Protein backbone atom coordinates (compact mmCIF):
# COMPACT_ATOMS: atom_id res chain seq x y z
CA UNK A 1 0.00 0.00 0.00
CA UNK A 2 1.45 3.30 -1.00
CA UNK A 3 0.60 6.75 -2.25
CA UNK A 4 2.49 8.44 -5.07
CA UNK A 5 2.14 12.15 -5.64
CA UNK A 6 3.00 13.62 -9.04
CA UNK A 7 2.48 17.03 -10.54
CA UNK A 8 0.57 17.29 -13.83
CA UNK A 9 0.63 20.99 -14.69
CA UNK A 10 -0.87 22.64 -11.63
CA UNK A 11 -2.76 19.49 -10.56
CA UNK A 12 -1.40 17.21 -7.85
CA UNK A 13 -2.19 13.65 -8.94
CA UNK A 14 -2.25 11.03 -6.17
CA UNK A 15 -2.08 7.32 -7.03
CA UNK A 16 -3.47 4.97 -4.38
CA UNK A 17 -1.97 1.53 -4.65
CA UNK A 18 -3.80 -1.35 -2.92
CA UNK A 19 -6.31 -0.24 -0.30
CA UNK A 20 -7.39 2.95 1.38
CA UNK A 21 -8.29 1.84 4.87
CA UNK A 22 -8.15 2.77 8.52
CA UNK A 23 -4.47 1.78 8.70
CA UNK A 24 -3.17 4.15 6.00
CA UNK A 25 -5.76 6.90 5.62
CA UNK A 26 -3.83 9.31 7.84
CA UNK A 27 -0.77 8.96 5.60
CA UNK A 28 -2.82 9.97 2.53
CA UNK A 29 -4.40 12.81 4.43
CA UNK A 30 -1.08 14.17 5.62
CA UNK A 31 0.50 13.96 2.18
CA UNK A 32 -2.35 15.88 0.56
CA UNK A 33 -2.53 18.44 3.38
CA UNK A 34 1.23 19.03 3.08
CA UNK A 35 0.77 19.94 -0.59
CA UNK A 36 -2.22 22.11 0.26
CA UNK A 37 -0.07 23.89 2.84
CA UNK A 38 2.60 24.47 0.18
CA UNK A 39 0.05 26.25 -1.99
CA UNK A 40 -1.38 23.60 -4.33
CA UNK A 41 -5.13 23.85 -4.83
CA UNK A 42 -6.05 21.25 -7.48
CA UNK A 43 -5.98 17.60 -6.49
CA UNK A 44 -6.87 14.42 -8.34
CA UNK A 45 -6.91 11.06 -6.57
CA UNK A 46 -6.58 8.22 -9.06
CA UNK A 47 -7.94 4.86 -7.88
CA UNK A 48 -6.84 2.83 -10.93
CA UNK A 49 -4.72 0.61 -8.69
CA UNK A 50 -7.08 0.55 -5.70
CA UNK A 51 -9.06 -2.55 -4.76
CA UNK A 52 -10.86 -1.51 -1.59
CA UNK A 53 -11.80 1.58 0.37
CA UNK A 54 -13.26 1.11 3.83
CA UNK A 55 -15.57 3.54 5.57
CA UNK A 56 -12.76 5.43 7.29
CA UNK A 57 -11.06 5.80 3.88
CA UNK A 58 -14.25 7.36 2.55
CA UNK A 59 -14.30 9.65 5.58
CA UNK A 60 -10.82 10.92 4.75
CA UNK A 61 -11.82 11.66 1.15
CA UNK A 62 -14.76 13.75 2.35
CA UNK A 63 -12.66 15.51 4.97
CA UNK A 64 -9.92 16.27 2.39
CA UNK A 65 -12.51 17.52 -0.08
CA UNK A 66 -13.92 19.89 2.56
CA UNK A 67 -10.48 21.18 3.56
CA UNK A 68 -9.42 21.73 -0.07
CA UNK A 69 -12.69 23.58 -0.78
CA UNK A 70 -12.13 25.79 2.28
CA UNK A 71 -8.85 26.85 0.66
CA UNK A 72 -10.62 27.65 -2.61
CA UNK A 73 -9.43 24.45 -4.30
CA UNK A 74 -11.02 21.27 -5.65
CA UNK A 75 -10.62 17.51 -5.22
CA UNK A 76 -11.55 15.20 -8.07
CA UNK A 77 -11.59 11.41 -8.19
CA UNK A 78 -10.87 9.11 -11.12
CA UNK A 79 -10.80 5.45 -12.16
CA UNK A 80 -13.07 3.94 -9.52
CA UNK A 81 -13.48 0.23 -10.25
CA UNK A 82 -17.01 -1.20 -10.58
CA UNK A 83 -17.28 -2.11 -6.88
CA UNK A 84 -16.10 1.31 -5.77
CA UNK A 85 -18.34 3.05 -8.30
CA UNK A 86 -21.31 1.09 -6.92
CA UNK A 87 -20.28 1.95 -3.35
CA UNK A 88 -20.17 5.65 -4.20
CA UNK A 89 -23.57 5.45 -5.89
CA UNK A 90 -25.22 3.40 -3.13
CA UNK A 91 -24.04 5.78 -0.43
CA UNK A 92 -24.80 8.89 -2.52
CA UNK A 93 -21.19 9.92 -2.15
CA UNK A 94 -21.15 10.43 -5.92
CA UNK A 95 -23.10 13.63 -5.23
CA UNK A 96 -20.23 15.05 -3.18
CA UNK A 97 -17.37 14.51 -5.64
CA UNK A 98 -16.63 15.09 -9.25
CA UNK A 99 -15.78 11.58 -10.45
CA UNK A 100 -14.28 10.80 -13.86
CA UNK A 101 -13.81 7.48 -15.71
CA UNK A 102 -10.22 8.22 -16.61
CA UNK A 103 -7.37 10.36 -15.42
CA UNK A 104 -7.39 12.29 -18.71
CA UNK A 105 -11.07 13.16 -18.39
CA UNK A 106 -10.58 14.27 -14.82
CA UNK A 107 -7.77 16.56 -15.85
CA UNK A 108 -9.80 18.10 -18.67
CA UNK A 109 -10.87 21.61 -17.76
CA UNK A 110 -9.42 21.34 -14.23
Amino acid sequence: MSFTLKKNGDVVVVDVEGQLIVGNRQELKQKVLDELEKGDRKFLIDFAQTGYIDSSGLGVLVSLSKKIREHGGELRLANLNDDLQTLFELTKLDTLFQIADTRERALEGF
Partner: protein
Amino acid sequence: MSRDLELEIENAARELAERYEEINLLYTISEILGRTVSLDRAATTILREVSETVGARRAAIYTCEAGSDMLDPIASVGVPDALPSVSLSDPRNLAARAFRGRHSVVIAPEDDVTDDGFRIGAVLAVPIMWTGEAGRPELLGAVSLTNRSTGAAFSAGDVKLVAAIATQIGSAIQNARLVRESIEQQRLLQEVRLAHDLQMKLLPSGDVVAPQAEASARVVPAESVGGDFYHLFRLTPSATGVMIGDVSSHGYRAALIMALAMSAAAIHAQSTLDPAAMLHALLYSLREELSNTEMFITLFYGVVDRQNRTLQYANAGHPHVFCCRPTGEPERLGALDPPLGMSDQAPTSRTVKWTPEKDLLVLFTDGITDALNDAGQPMGERRVLDTIQRYATEPAAVIVDRVFDALSQHTGDIPPRDDLTLVVLRS
Protein backbone atom coordinates in the same frame (compact mmCIF):
# COMPACT_ATOMS: atom_id res chain seq x y z
CA MET B 1 50.59 -27.54 67.09
CA SER B 2 52.54 -24.65 65.76
CA ARG B 3 51.26 -21.10 66.20
CA ASP B 4 51.04 -20.74 62.38
CA LEU B 5 48.79 -23.73 62.06
CA GLU B 6 46.56 -22.47 64.84
CA LEU B 7 46.24 -19.14 63.05
CA GLU B 8 45.42 -20.84 59.79
CA ILE B 9 42.71 -22.94 61.41
CA GLU B 10 41.33 -19.85 63.10
CA ASN B 11 41.23 -17.97 59.80
CA ALA B 12 39.62 -20.89 58.01
CA ALA B 13 37.00 -21.16 60.74
CA ARG B 14 36.26 -17.42 60.51
CA GLU B 15 36.01 -17.56 56.75
CA LEU B 16 33.76 -20.60 57.01
CA ALA B 17 31.55 -18.71 59.45
CA GLU B 18 31.39 -15.74 57.05
CA ARG B 19 30.54 -17.98 54.10
CA TYR B 20 27.89 -19.67 56.22
CA GLU B 21 26.43 -16.27 57.06
CA GLU B 22 26.44 -15.27 53.40
CA ILE B 23 24.79 -18.49 52.27
CA ASN B 24 22.30 -18.18 55.08
CA LEU B 25 21.55 -14.61 53.96
CA LEU B 26 20.95 -15.72 50.39
CA TYR B 27 18.58 -18.45 51.60
CA THR B 28 16.76 -15.97 53.83
CA ILE B 29 16.33 -13.54 50.94
CA SER B 30 15.04 -16.23 48.61
CA GLU B 31 12.57 -17.19 51.29
CA ILE B 32 11.45 -13.57 51.82
CA LEU B 33 10.97 -13.05 48.10
CA GLY B 34 9.21 -16.39 47.72
CA ARG B 35 6.47 -15.62 50.19
CA THR B 36 5.56 -12.01 49.41
CA VAL B 37 4.49 -9.95 46.44
CA SER B 38 4.73 -6.66 48.34
CA LEU B 39 8.00 -5.25 47.09
CA ASP B 40 8.34 -2.51 49.73
CA ARG B 41 7.88 -4.94 52.58
CA ALA B 42 10.32 -7.47 51.10
CA ALA B 43 12.86 -4.73 50.33
CA THR B 44 12.88 -3.51 53.95
CA THR B 45 13.39 -7.04 55.31
CA ILE B 46 16.13 -7.81 52.78
CA LEU B 47 17.91 -4.54 53.51
CA ARG B 48 17.86 -5.23 57.23
CA GLU B 49 19.30 -8.74 56.69
CA VAL B 50 22.04 -7.62 54.30
CA SER B 51 23.00 -4.65 56.49
CA GLU B 52 23.38 -6.96 59.46
CA THR B 53 25.54 -9.42 57.48
CA VAL B 54 27.99 -6.80 56.19
CA GLY B 55 27.81 -4.77 59.41
CA ALA B 56 26.35 -1.62 57.85
CA ARG B 57 24.20 0.49 60.16
CA ARG B 58 22.85 2.77 57.48
CA ALA B 59 21.48 1.54 54.15
CA ALA B 60 18.93 2.27 51.42
CA ILE B 61 17.38 0.68 48.35
CA TYR B 62 16.29 2.97 45.51
CA THR B 63 14.32 2.12 42.40
CA CYS B 64 13.90 3.99 39.14
CA GLU B 65 10.56 3.78 37.29
CA ALA B 66 10.75 3.38 33.50
CA GLY B 67 11.06 6.78 31.84
CA SER B 68 11.77 8.59 35.13
CA ASP B 69 14.99 10.44 35.89
CA MET B 70 14.70 9.99 39.65
CA LEU B 71 15.76 7.31 42.10
CA ASP B 72 12.99 6.72 44.64
CA PRO B 73 13.81 5.16 48.04
CA ILE B 74 11.70 2.04 48.71
CA ALA B 75 13.51 0.89 51.88
CA SER B 76 15.99 2.34 54.37
CA VAL B 77 17.79 1.36 57.58
CA GLY B 78 19.41 3.65 60.12
CA VAL B 79 18.21 7.00 58.78
CA PRO B 80 16.28 9.28 61.13
CA ASP B 81 13.88 10.70 58.55
CA ALA B 82 12.38 9.47 55.30
CA LEU B 83 14.92 9.70 52.49
CA PRO B 84 14.15 12.05 49.61
CA SER B 85 14.10 10.97 45.96
CA VAL B 86 17.36 11.59 44.17
CA SER B 87 18.02 12.83 40.66
CA LEU B 88 19.88 10.28 38.52
CA SER B 89 22.33 13.02 37.60
CA ASP B 90 23.03 13.99 41.25
CA PRO B 91 26.87 14.02 41.45
CA ARG B 92 26.96 13.75 45.27
CA ASN B 93 24.64 10.78 45.73
CA LEU B 94 26.67 7.57 45.56
CA ALA B 95 23.70 5.34 44.70
CA ALA B 96 23.00 7.60 41.68
CA ARG B 97 26.68 7.33 40.78
CA ALA B 98 26.56 3.51 40.85
CA PHE B 99 23.35 3.63 38.78
CA ARG B 100 24.84 5.94 36.15
CA GLY B 101 28.10 4.00 35.93
CA ARG B 102 26.31 0.59 35.96
CA HIS B 103 29.06 -0.49 38.35
CA SER B 104 29.68 -0.82 42.10
CA VAL B 105 31.07 2.24 43.87
CA VAL B 106 33.40 1.38 46.80
CA ILE B 107 34.52 4.24 49.06
CA ALA B 108 37.05 3.59 51.85
CA PRO B 109 36.66 5.44 55.19
CA GLU B 110 39.69 7.58 54.47
CA ASP B 111 38.64 8.55 50.91
CA ASP B 112 37.87 12.21 50.38
CA VAL B 113 34.52 12.24 48.57
CA THR B 114 31.86 14.93 48.58
CA ASP B 115 28.52 13.27 49.26
CA ASP B 116 24.99 14.32 50.15
CA GLY B 117 25.32 13.48 53.85
CA PHE B 118 24.26 9.84 53.65
CA ARG B 119 27.82 8.57 54.05
CA ILE B 120 29.41 7.72 57.39
CA GLY B 121 32.85 6.20 56.75
CA ALA B 122 33.01 3.41 54.18
CA VAL B 123 30.33 3.20 51.48
CA LEU B 124 29.29 0.44 49.12
CA ALA B 125 26.78 1.35 46.40
CA VAL B 126 25.71 -1.31 43.90
CA PRO B 127 23.40 -0.93 40.87
CA ILE B 128 20.31 -3.15 40.74
CA MET B 129 19.95 -4.73 37.33
CA TRP B 130 17.73 -7.29 35.73
CA THR B 131 18.58 -9.33 32.66
CA GLY B 132 15.53 -10.52 30.74
CA GLU B 133 15.17 -12.92 27.85
CA ALA B 134 16.67 -10.40 25.44
CA GLY B 135 19.91 -10.67 27.40
CA ARG B 136 20.39 -6.93 27.79
CA PRO B 137 20.73 -5.87 31.45
CA GLU B 138 18.14 -3.30 32.44
CA LEU B 139 18.87 -0.80 35.22
CA LEU B 140 16.18 -0.84 37.90
CA GLY B 141 17.75 0.93 40.90
CA ALA B 142 20.63 0.88 43.37
CA VAL B 143 21.44 -0.24 46.90
CA SER B 144 23.70 1.81 49.15
CA LEU B 145 25.35 0.71 52.46
CA THR B 146 27.45 2.74 54.92
CA ASN B 147 28.33 3.32 58.62
CA ARG B 148 30.03 -0.03 59.23
CA SER B 149 30.21 -1.19 62.83
CA THR B 150 33.84 -2.24 62.33
CA GLY B 151 34.72 1.09 60.71
CA ALA B 152 36.61 -0.90 58.05
CA ALA B 153 36.38 -0.63 54.28
CA PHE B 154 34.09 -3.00 52.33
CA SER B 155 36.00 -6.03 51.03
CA ALA B 156 35.83 -7.60 47.57
CA GLY B 157 33.78 -10.37 49.17
CA ASP B 158 31.26 -7.81 50.48
CA VAL B 159 30.96 -6.28 47.00
CA LYS B 160 30.36 -9.73 45.48
CA LEU B 161 27.76 -10.61 48.10
CA VAL B 162 25.83 -7.34 47.81
CA ALA B 163 25.98 -7.60 43.98
CA ALA B 164 24.44 -11.08 44.21
CA ILE B 165 21.70 -9.77 46.46
CA ALA B 166 21.13 -6.78 44.17
CA THR B 167 20.45 -9.26 41.37
CA GLN B 168 17.84 -10.98 43.54
CA ILE B 169 16.28 -7.62 44.41
CA GLY B 170 16.26 -6.82 40.66
CA SER B 171 14.24 -9.96 39.96
CA ALA B 172 11.85 -9.03 42.75
CA ILE B 173 11.37 -5.49 41.39
CA GLN B 174 10.76 -6.87 37.92
CA ASN B 175 8.26 -9.43 39.23
CA ALA B 176 6.44 -6.74 41.18
CA ARG B 177 6.23 -4.60 38.03
CA LEU B 178 4.91 -7.51 35.99
CA VAL B 179 2.28 -8.26 38.64
CA ARG B 180 1.26 -4.58 38.63
CA GLU B 181 1.03 -4.52 34.82
CA SER B 182 -0.95 -7.73 34.78
CA ILE B 183 -3.43 -6.32 37.32
CA GLU B 184 -3.70 -3.17 35.20
CA GLN B 185 -4.34 -5.24 32.08
CA GLN B 186 -7.02 -7.27 33.83
CA ARG B 187 -8.68 -4.05 34.94
CA LEU B 188 -8.63 -2.72 31.37
CA LEU B 189 -10.03 -5.97 30.03
CA GLN B 190 -12.81 -5.78 32.59
CA GLU B 191 -13.61 -2.21 31.52
CA VAL B 192 -13.74 -3.24 27.87
CA ARG B 193 -16.12 -6.08 28.78
CA LEU B 194 -18.25 -3.65 30.73
CA ALA B 195 -18.34 -1.19 27.80
CA HIS B 196 -19.35 -4.04 25.48
CA ASP B 197 -22.16 -5.16 27.82
CA LEU B 198 -23.30 -1.58 28.19
CA GLN B 199 -23.35 -1.07 24.43
CA MET B 200 -25.32 -4.26 23.86
CA LYS B 201 -27.82 -3.18 26.53
CA LEU B 202 -28.51 0.04 24.60
CA LEU B 203 -29.83 -2.02 21.69
CA PRO B 204 -33.54 -2.77 22.09
CA SER B 205 -35.10 -6.21 21.98
CA GLY B 206 -37.51 -6.94 19.12
CA ASP B 207 -40.28 -7.15 21.73
CA VAL B 208 -40.48 -3.34 22.04
CA VAL B 209 -42.47 -3.19 18.80
CA ALA B 210 -44.69 -6.23 19.47
CA PRO B 211 -47.48 -7.02 18.82
CA GLN B 212 -47.90 -4.55 15.95
CA ALA B 213 -44.60 -5.68 14.43
CA GLU B 214 -42.38 -8.71 14.63
CA ALA B 215 -38.72 -7.74 14.69
CA SER B 216 -35.47 -9.60 15.20
CA ALA B 217 -31.95 -8.16 15.20
CA ARG B 218 -28.36 -9.13 15.90
CA VAL B 219 -25.18 -7.08 16.31
CA VAL B 220 -21.74 -8.70 16.49
CA PRO B 221 -19.03 -6.08 17.07
CA ALA B 222 -15.65 -6.73 15.43
CA GLU B 223 -13.88 -5.25 18.44
CA SER B 224 -15.23 -5.41 21.96
CA VAL B 225 -17.05 -2.17 21.28
CA GLY B 226 -18.25 -1.29 17.81
CA GLY B 227 -19.93 1.36 15.71
CA ASP B 228 -22.97 -0.52 14.32
CA PHE B 229 -26.38 -0.03 15.84
CA TYR B 230 -30.09 -0.32 15.26
CA HIS B 231 -33.15 1.05 16.96
CA LEU B 232 -36.84 0.15 17.05
CA PHE B 233 -39.69 2.47 18.03
CA ARG B 234 -43.38 1.96 18.56
CA LEU B 235 -44.63 5.31 17.27
CA THR B 236 -48.41 4.82 17.06
CA PRO B 237 -50.57 1.67 17.34
CA SER B 238 -49.98 1.13 13.60
CA ALA B 239 -46.62 2.87 12.90
CA THR B 240 -43.25 1.33 13.73
CA GLY B 241 -39.90 3.09 13.39
CA VAL B 242 -36.80 1.11 12.35
CA MET B 243 -33.29 2.47 12.24
CA ILE B 244 -29.90 1.04 11.28
CA GLY B 245 -26.61 2.89 11.47
CA ASP B 246 -22.93 2.30 10.90
CA VAL B 247 -20.40 4.73 12.38
CA SER B 248 -17.32 5.03 10.16
CA SER B 249 -14.92 3.59 12.71
CA HIS B 250 -14.62 1.09 15.57
CA GLY B 251 -13.55 1.23 19.17
CA TYR B 252 -14.43 3.69 21.89
CA ARG B 253 -14.88 6.82 19.78
CA ALA B 254 -17.28 5.05 17.43
CA ALA B 255 -19.11 3.52 20.40
CA LEU B 256 -19.54 6.97 21.92
CA ILE B 257 -21.00 8.39 18.67
CA MET B 258 -23.24 5.34 18.44
CA ALA B 259 -24.53 5.91 21.98
CA LEU B 260 -25.14 9.60 21.22
CA ALA B 261 -26.96 8.78 17.98
CA MET B 262 -29.15 6.22 19.73
CA SER B 263 -30.18 8.50 22.57
CA ALA B 264 -30.80 11.48 20.27
CA ALA B 265 -32.79 9.27 17.87
CA ALA B 266 -34.98 8.04 20.73
CA ILE B 267 -35.92 11.64 21.53
CA HIS B 268 -36.47 12.83 17.95
CA ALA B 269 -38.42 9.74 16.83
CA GLN B 270 -41.13 10.52 19.36
CA SER B 271 -41.61 14.06 18.03
CA THR B 272 -42.21 13.32 14.33
CA LEU B 273 -43.46 10.59 12.02
CA ASP B 274 -41.53 12.07 9.08
CA PRO B 275 -38.25 10.14 8.65
CA ALA B 276 -36.53 13.06 6.85
CA ALA B 277 -37.40 15.46 9.69
CA MET B 278 -36.16 12.91 12.19
CA LEU B 279 -32.77 12.49 10.41
CA HIS B 280 -32.46 16.23 10.05
CA ALA B 281 -32.98 16.69 13.80
CA LEU B 282 -30.50 13.91 14.45
CA LEU B 283 -27.93 15.52 12.17
CA TYR B 284 -28.39 18.75 14.09
CA SER B 285 -27.77 16.92 17.40
CA LEU B 286 -24.66 15.13 16.16
CA ARG B 287 -23.16 17.68 13.77
CA GLU B 288 -20.56 19.10 16.13
CA GLU B 289 -19.47 15.71 17.44
CA LEU B 290 -19.18 14.28 13.91
CA SER B 291 -17.25 17.25 12.62
CA ASN B 292 -14.82 17.20 15.57
CA THR B 293 -14.06 13.52 15.16
CA GLU B 294 -14.10 13.39 11.32
CA MET B 295 -16.51 10.48 11.58
CA PHE B 296 -19.75 9.99 9.71
CA ILE B 297 -22.72 7.68 10.00
CA THR B 298 -24.57 5.82 7.31
CA LEU B 299 -28.10 5.87 8.64
CA PHE B 300 -31.46 4.59 7.46
CA TYR B 301 -34.67 5.40 9.24
CA GLY B 302 -37.99 4.03 8.05
CA VAL B 303 -41.54 4.24 9.36
CA VAL B 304 -43.76 1.29 8.50
CA ASP B 305 -47.46 2.12 8.82
CA ARG B 306 -49.56 -1.02 8.51
CA GLN B 307 -52.81 0.91 8.52
CA ASN B 308 -51.79 3.29 5.72
CA ARG B 309 -49.94 0.40 4.01
CA THR B 310 -46.87 2.57 3.50
CA LEU B 311 -43.19 2.51 4.26
CA GLN B 312 -41.70 5.99 4.34
CA TYR B 313 -37.96 6.29 4.72
CA ALA B 314 -34.99 8.61 4.76
CA ASN B 315 -31.60 7.15 3.97
CA ALA B 316 -28.33 8.96 4.55
CA GLY B 317 -25.76 6.83 2.76
CA HIS B 318 -26.77 3.38 4.03
CA PRO B 319 -26.37 0.93 1.14
CA HIS B 320 -28.05 -2.23 2.39
CA VAL B 321 -31.77 -1.85 3.07
CA PHE B 322 -34.35 -3.88 1.18
CA CYS B 323 -38.07 -4.38 1.04
CA CYS B 324 -38.58 -8.09 0.31
CA ARG B 325 -42.03 -8.88 -1.12
CA PRO B 326 -43.62 -12.33 -1.55
CA THR B 327 -42.92 -12.15 -5.28
CA GLY B 328 -40.28 -10.44 -7.32
CA GLU B 329 -36.78 -9.20 -6.56
CA PRO B 330 -36.09 -7.43 -3.26
CA GLU B 331 -36.42 -3.66 -3.74
CA ARG B 332 -33.39 -1.70 -2.60
CA LEU B 333 -34.36 1.30 -0.49
CA GLY B 334 -31.21 3.11 -1.56
CA ALA B 335 -29.55 6.15 -0.12
CA LEU B 336 -31.33 9.41 -0.87
CA ASP B 337 -28.58 11.54 0.66
CA PRO B 338 -24.90 11.18 1.58
CA PRO B 339 -24.02 9.84 5.05
CA LEU B 340 -24.70 12.05 8.08
CA GLY B 341 -21.70 14.22 8.78
CA MET B 342 -20.56 14.36 5.14
CA SER B 343 -22.96 17.02 4.01
CA ASP B 344 -25.06 19.70 5.67
CA GLN B 345 -28.01 19.36 3.32
CA ALA B 346 -31.38 18.42 4.83
CA PRO B 347 -32.23 14.74 4.29
CA THR B 348 -35.13 13.83 2.02
CA SER B 349 -37.64 10.99 2.19
CA ARG B 350 -39.43 8.56 -0.10
CA THR B 351 -42.56 6.44 0.34
CA VAL B 352 -43.13 2.92 -1.00
CA LYS B 353 -46.13 0.61 -0.74
CA TRP B 354 -46.21 -1.86 2.16
CA THR B 355 -48.23 -5.05 2.41
CA PRO B 356 -48.90 -5.83 6.08
CA GLU B 357 -47.79 -9.28 7.30
CA LYS B 358 -46.37 -10.12 3.88
CA ASP B 359 -43.55 -7.68 3.23
CA LEU B 360 -40.23 -7.86 5.04
CA LEU B 361 -38.00 -4.90 5.81
CA VAL B 362 -34.40 -6.14 5.84
CA LEU B 363 -31.53 -3.95 7.00
CA PHE B 364 -27.85 -4.91 7.32
CA THR B 365 -24.38 -3.41 7.43
CA ASP B 366 -21.43 -3.93 5.09
CA GLY B 367 -19.65 -6.02 7.73
CA ILE B 368 -21.91 -8.88 6.56
CA THR B 369 -21.56 -8.38 2.79
CA ASP B 370 -17.80 -7.68 3.01
CA ALA B 371 -17.01 -10.63 5.33
CA LEU B 372 -14.23 -12.62 3.67
CA ASN B 373 -13.73 -16.37 3.38
CA ASP B 374 -10.31 -18.01 3.51
CA ALA B 375 -9.87 -17.36 -0.22
CA GLY B 376 -10.37 -13.65 0.41
CA GLN B 377 -13.79 -13.50 -1.29
CA PRO B 378 -16.56 -11.41 0.25
CA MET B 379 -19.91 -12.95 1.20
CA GLY B 380 -21.70 -10.49 -1.09
CA GLU B 381 -25.15 -8.95 -0.97
CA ARG B 382 -26.66 -11.58 -3.29
CA ARG B 383 -26.04 -14.45 -0.90
CA VAL B 384 -27.58 -12.52 2.01
CA LEU B 385 -30.69 -11.71 -0.03
CA ASP B 386 -30.99 -15.28 -1.38
CA THR B 387 -30.92 -16.64 2.17
CA ILE B 388 -33.57 -14.14 3.28
CA GLN B 389 -35.83 -14.98 0.35
CA ARG B 390 -35.47 -18.69 0.95
CA TYR B 391 -36.70 -18.34 4.54
CA ALA B 392 -38.96 -15.30 3.98
CA THR B 393 -42.08 -16.92 5.45
CA GLU B 394 -40.30 -18.04 8.63
CA PRO B 395 -40.39 -15.96 11.85
CA ALA B 396 -38.00 -12.96 11.77
CA ALA B 397 -35.73 -14.57 14.39
CA VAL B 398 -35.30 -17.68 12.21
CA ILE B 399 -34.39 -15.54 9.19
CA VAL B 400 -31.70 -13.76 11.24
CA ASP B 401 -30.35 -17.13 12.41
CA ARG B 402 -30.20 -18.47 8.86
CA VAL B 403 -28.27 -15.46 7.56
CA PHE B 404 -25.72 -15.76 10.38
CA ASP B 405 -25.49 -19.53 9.67
CA ALA B 406 -24.68 -18.74 6.03
CA LEU B 407 -22.16 -16.16 7.20
CA SER B 408 -20.42 -18.68 9.47
CA GLN B 409 -20.31 -21.19 6.64
CA HIS B 410 -18.70 -18.57 4.43
CA THR B 411 -16.13 -17.17 6.84
CA GLY B 412 -15.25 -20.36 8.77
CA ASP B 413 -12.78 -19.50 11.52
CA ILE B 414 -11.84 -16.08 10.13
CA PRO B 415 -12.69 -13.41 12.71
CA PRO B 416 -14.87 -10.52 11.46
CA ARG B 417 -12.93 -7.40 10.43
CA ASP B 418 -16.01 -5.20 10.71
CA ASP B 419 -19.12 -5.11 12.89
CA LEU B 420 -21.95 -7.36 11.70
CA THR B 421 -25.56 -6.19 12.03
CA LEU B 422 -28.83 -7.51 10.66
CA VAL B 423 -32.42 -6.41 11.38
CA VAL B 424 -35.53 -8.09 9.97
CA LEU B 425 -39.02 -6.66 10.50
CA ARG B 426 -42.50 -7.73 9.55
CA SER B 427 -45.60 -5.68 10.41
